[in-house]
């Protein structure tokens, strides 16, 4: 059930109607049932994976919760009789016991994800390696259809388990309620990855009907559909053409392709997130923010704070900090200081985990070398950014470059955008080799004339479509700039006169109907991040 389909609109309408008509005490049950109906439509056979994750994480978390409660009681009883060393030993022993529950549960769930997502990739690469060394070994390289949202719900449930392990909150006792948290239908498809502490209470409480909130939710859905159908799917035509024929469309076309792919990916992913957030808002639930105008970022780290925020936050909290603050990396830091000096040695416990995080973010996107290369590309940029941060600041100071002005800010934004667009070439090109070829071609065969001599008309869109893409992208940019300056669009619109509001609403709806890329002339395209 695609977010832009009529079925989804009908499903959401029915779900909201039944939800608000259900007695308050049982509203969460309505949501729970709706989630499983939604997931059932995606493919009944995939339910087994969702159920496996739900049950194992639930049991693991419950066990951890029980252990913590018992430990608290036991420890309180003997606390006064223990000296410092004994307390330390008690804690270490308890941590060991908890890990005995945590690690198998984590491994089981990461195992499902890994087998389904990566076994084919690993198998085929091992086979290639064996063949290279003339070894007569053949590994199975199966190709599985990924269950809907597996990367998202696995990460969401792992975060919950780790938080229970860290005793941030008590585990949920009710299995159905926990299942509701894992499977909330607007976010299971492509995020945002929710945290139990933010989401659970909202899901379990009986949300009442609010006209204003429903209106805002519907507006956000419309905006999301606009980004997907008018911008992203139109941009897709150009992107598909350029990246399908890199030898034909070299030089400037590559730059056009990379830039338009940035627009497509943002329209597609953030459009999907807007629809999810709007749908949740209709039901009275506020999902976490997943985008904050990423292309207005002034640096690569800033970009990653604005793009897919919940994934970045997940890796920060559950990979980066545990690694960076681990005993091992503390040791690495100390040794690094001896070997490379204070400046680099101090940074090593940050740099290496950062690199690992971006490597993992890369492979999270898919089991292909290009995603690994994408991870390395971003990791390298981040590491270089950290390493050269101080020297560059000094250089800027020496050159007396003003940094508190618009032109410097614009330079930073454009520089970041160029780096991001180069990274997009890696993920969109058919392979790593192709992305290198295309980037070289862009530099070597630059020909600005194609932008004015009708060269853009070779990319699958006619003049009117190009105008629609340009104007709708400008609308997106304008809205982004307004939001960046602190204006809340929906709230500001709500303060306007009825006539003006209706004109805006109708213009938005009719722009979707008239300019949306849908119907028989186009192949229906799925949301890109749904595939991750």
């Amino acid at each position: 059930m695609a977010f832009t389909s009529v079925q989804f609109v009908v499903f959401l309408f029915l779900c909201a109607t039944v939800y608000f008509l259900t007695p308050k005490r049982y509203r969460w049950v309505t949501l729970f049932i709706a989630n499983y109906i939604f997931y059932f439509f995606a493919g009944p056979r995939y339910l087994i994976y969702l159920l496996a994750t739900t049950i194992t994480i639930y049991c693991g978390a419950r066990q951890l919760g029980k252990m913590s409660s018992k430990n608290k009681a036991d420890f309180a009883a003997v606390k006064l009789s223990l000296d410092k060393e004994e307390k330390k030993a008690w804690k270490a022993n308890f941590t060991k016991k908890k890990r005995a529950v945590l690690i198998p549960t984590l491994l089981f769930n990461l195992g499902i994800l890994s087998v389904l997502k990566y076994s084919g990739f690993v198998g085929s690469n091992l086979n290639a390696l064996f063949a290279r060394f003339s070894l007569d070994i053949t590994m199975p390289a199966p190709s599985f259809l990924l269950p809907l949202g597996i990367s998202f719900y696995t990460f969401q449930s792992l975060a919950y388990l780790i938080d229970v392990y860290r005793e941030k909150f008590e585990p949920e006792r009710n299995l159905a309620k926990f299942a509701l948290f894992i499977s909330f239908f607007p976010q299971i498809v492509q995020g945002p990855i929710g945290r139990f502490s933010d989401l659970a209470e909202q899901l379990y409480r009986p949300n009442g009907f609010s006209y204003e909130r429903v209106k805002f939710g519907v507006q956000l859905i419309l905006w999301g559909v606009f980004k997907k159908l008018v911008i992203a799917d139109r941009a897709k035509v150009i992107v598909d053409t350029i990246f399908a024929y890199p030898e034909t469309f070299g030089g400037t076309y590559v730059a056009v392709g990379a830039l338009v792919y940035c627009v497509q990916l943002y329209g597609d992913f953030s459009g999907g997130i807007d629809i999810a957030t709007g749908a949740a808002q209709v039901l009275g639930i506020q999902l976490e923010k997943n985008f904050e105008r990423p292309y207005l970022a002034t640096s690569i780290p800033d970009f990653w704070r604005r793009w897919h925020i919940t994934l970045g936050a997940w890796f920060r909290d559950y990979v980066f900090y545990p690694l960076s603050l681990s005993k091992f990396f503390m040791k690495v830091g100390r040794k690094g200081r001896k070997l490379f000096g204070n400046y680099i040695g101090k940074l090593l416990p940050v740099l290496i985990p950062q690199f690992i995080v971006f490597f993992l973010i890369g492979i999270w996107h898919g089991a292909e070398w290009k995603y690994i290369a994408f991870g390395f590309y971003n990791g390298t940029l981040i590491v270089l950014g950290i390493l050269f941060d101080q020297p560059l600041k000094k250089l800027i100071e020496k050159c007396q470059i003003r940094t508190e002005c618009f032109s410097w800010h614009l330079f930073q934004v454009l520089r970041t955008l160029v780096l991001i667009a180069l990274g997009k070439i890696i993920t969109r090109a058919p392979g790593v080799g192709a992305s290198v070829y295309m980037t070289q071609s862009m530099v070597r065969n630059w020909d600005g004339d194609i932008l004015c001599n009708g060269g853009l008309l070779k990319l699958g869109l006619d003049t009117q479509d190009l105008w629609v893409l340009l104007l709708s992208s400008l609308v997106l940019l304008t809205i982004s700039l307004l939001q960046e300056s602190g204006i809340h669009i929906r709230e500001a619109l709500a303060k306007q006169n009825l006539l003006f509001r209706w004109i805006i609403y109708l213009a938005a709806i009719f722009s979707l109907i008239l300019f949306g890329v849908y119907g028989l002339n186009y192949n229906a395209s799925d949301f890109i991040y749904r595939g991750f």
Partner: protein
Amino acid sequence: MKMALRIVIRCVAFLLVFSMLFLGATEYLRRADDEADEIHAFYNEPKNSIDVLFMGSSPILRGISPMVLWNQEGFTSYVRASALQAPAVTYGLLAESLEYQKPELVVLLCDNIFLEFEYAEREGDLRRALDGMKLSKYKLQIIRQITAEDERQTLLSYVFPLLRYHERWKELDLAEAEPVPLLENSFKKGNVYLRGSEPQAYPQNFMAPSDEAPPEFNEAAKGYIEQTIQFCKEKDIPVLLLHLPKMSWSYGQSMKLEEFAAEMGVEYLDCDREENRAQLNLDPAVDYYDQGHMNLDGSIKLSQWLGTHLKEAYGLPDHRNEGEYQAWHEDYQQYAERISP
């Protein structure tokens, strides 16, 4: 409560404005089409005022002129046909027509019984018929059939054609664009004639008896035609299976259709049988638009001959002197003016 009422009123008002704009946009962007127009204009005919309904695909659409039949014999008729009409559409269109009219006779062109209808490749033909139809259970049945056969097509795009034609703004000169509502009243009564001609010649041994096995019926098409005939029988309306002149026809096909008609207990009339050809006296050099369709001259000759046959065989009434049918005289005048060279 007051607040809730205000919200409801606002929502209803917004939906009304939206609907008006949506309908307006549909009329601007609709692909104007004679066949859809003629199918739609049928609804404006006074209830139970049509004596004969002609159903089927393009040969009957081009070849039968209800105005000629009216002028010559005085009975009323309407052609509810469209190019390469799918048997499912013929069935739905007939069933729907019988909600509005109770004809004395249904004439069914069913050459398509030999063809496999590729729904996925015939979207244009399907829309010609369906765009003219009002929303009804019969239209929904046809849409269900189409969407089952071609998953790219959607129910909504047939119910709201704007969702199909939404891109036509690119083809319009917005400064001169005008709304194109569906036709409300037709003087041609469903006939979409073709001017011009392409000289034809009968193939060697045309309609000569031969031992060659005729092509098989398409089972799906046959099923729908059987349903259509059965539906008429239930309504106590006689059915005439008709074959109109075309160059790519064989004696075997004719005999097979005759057998089928006999099995179904209905009459079969084949205009390409020698005895009928002799009476019809068509001139292949001037009366054909192409191999399979009559042009305007051919359609007049054909309608004149068929009118006589139908009048005699089915005892159809003559309304020419009845006051309620005066509009038909006016329509004929318009038709006569239009067809004059």
